[in-house]
């Protein structure tokens, strides 16, 4: 899809630039809009929107914070009071968590290849992982360890060469054409500027 960025490292850079604008945001409404923006961004890059997870995280963190009463009492249920300060703190923390999860998902959605020795080792791990996922079959009853052994031995005996695992080549961590890079850079710049513009409205107190 054309709106997707092809270059994983540009997504990481864009995400890193958005983190301060998100974490330092004082306004709850702006933060809510930012979370919505980040969810849409992650969804556009192939990540699933998990409504149940969002609801559970939002409800559980807010509920836990409500137990620490703080500020004006909004309502009371028996001896338990729902206070404004606790409610706002809970919502802020929950939205920060949800926003960071989706920002993180957007950043790693392009299967980034990290540079250096450790990056190559990570690639090797993922190739073995893909082999495990595709080769794993439901074991016969009572033969779980034997099935596991077979798989581990297959990997050990070199079903994947160093070349396949990327352990011998020096990759740059950049995939795709030069043009894709220029377009991606433009899209990333647009996203980061729009995100910071929204944040600036919150910092300046123009938006709550």
């Amino acid at each position, binding site marked *: 899809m054309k709106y997707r960025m092809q270059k994983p490292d540009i997504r990481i850079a864009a*995400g*890193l630039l958005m*983190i301060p604008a998100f974490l330092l945001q004082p306004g709850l409404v702006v933060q809510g809009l930012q979370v919505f923006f980040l969810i849409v961004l*992650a969804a556009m890059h192939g*990540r699933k929107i998990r409504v149940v*997870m969002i609801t*559970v*995280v939002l409800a*559980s*963190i807010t509920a*836990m*914070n409500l*137990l*620490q009463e703080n500020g004006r009492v909004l309502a009371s249920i028996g001896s338990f009071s729902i206070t404004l300060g606790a409610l706002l*703190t809970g919502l802020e*923390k929950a939205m*920060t*968590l949800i926003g*960071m*999860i989706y*920002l*993180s*998902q957007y*950043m*790693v*959605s392009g*299967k*980034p290849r990290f540079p250096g020795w*450790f990056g190559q*080792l*990570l690639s*090797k*791990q*993922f*190739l*073995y*992982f893909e*082999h*495990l*996922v595709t080769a*794993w079959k439901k074991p016969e009853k009572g033969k779980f*360890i034997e099935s*596991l*052994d077979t798989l*581990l*031995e297959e*990997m*050990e005996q070199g079903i994947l060469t*160093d070349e396949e*695992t990327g*352990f011998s080549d020096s990759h740059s961590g950049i995939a795709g054409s030069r043009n894709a890079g220029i377009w991606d850079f433009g899209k990333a710049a647009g996203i980061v500027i729009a995100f910071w513009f929204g944040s600036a409205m919150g910092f300046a107190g123009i938006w709550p």
Partner: protein
Amino acid sequence: MSSENTPVKRENGIGSEIITKIAILAAFSLFLSTVEYMIPKPLPFLRIGLANLPIMVGLALFSLPEYLILVTLKIAGQGLINGTLFSYIFIYSAGGSLASSLMMYLLYKLFHNKISYIGISLVGAMTSNSVQLLLAQYLLFGSSIWIIAPPFLLMGLVSSILLGIFVNHFTDRSRWYSSALEFTGLYGKRGRDEISHAET
């Protein structure tokens, strides 16, 4: 067993066979983490800790730097697969995994012939859960997190005992493990006992 008391040569830092073993166990950890991800849980924060199985298997196989590479790969791999690499969740995962792995490694090195994998798993899970509760207190929930501490710790207790039983079983019966143990040559008395047990 020619290599029984001779550690394998680790030229240029870490040998490629060792690297392969680390990558295989790290991939296995990722695989188990994905399996766990598919198991429905009442709360997203509750974990069984299946991904710690390869970490425990690695206790007898690797030196501390190699073991830390395995743990780092597990943490980074999980962060990438679940997309949480740049989020708070990653801090929980990294904090819990690192603390529990170091504690398990220390226990294994100091008391490997006095403590079973069940005990090691139990201590690892309690360490991991305690660190995660502390992080949750400071990052998200505040002191009310301790309300959910009992079920959280109880879940860790039960799952870690089951995991420890499985690791005991695996290290006793696995062909791959006994050949890896023989190859790495880092084991102490318990490791040799494990090999002779597997051979008989």
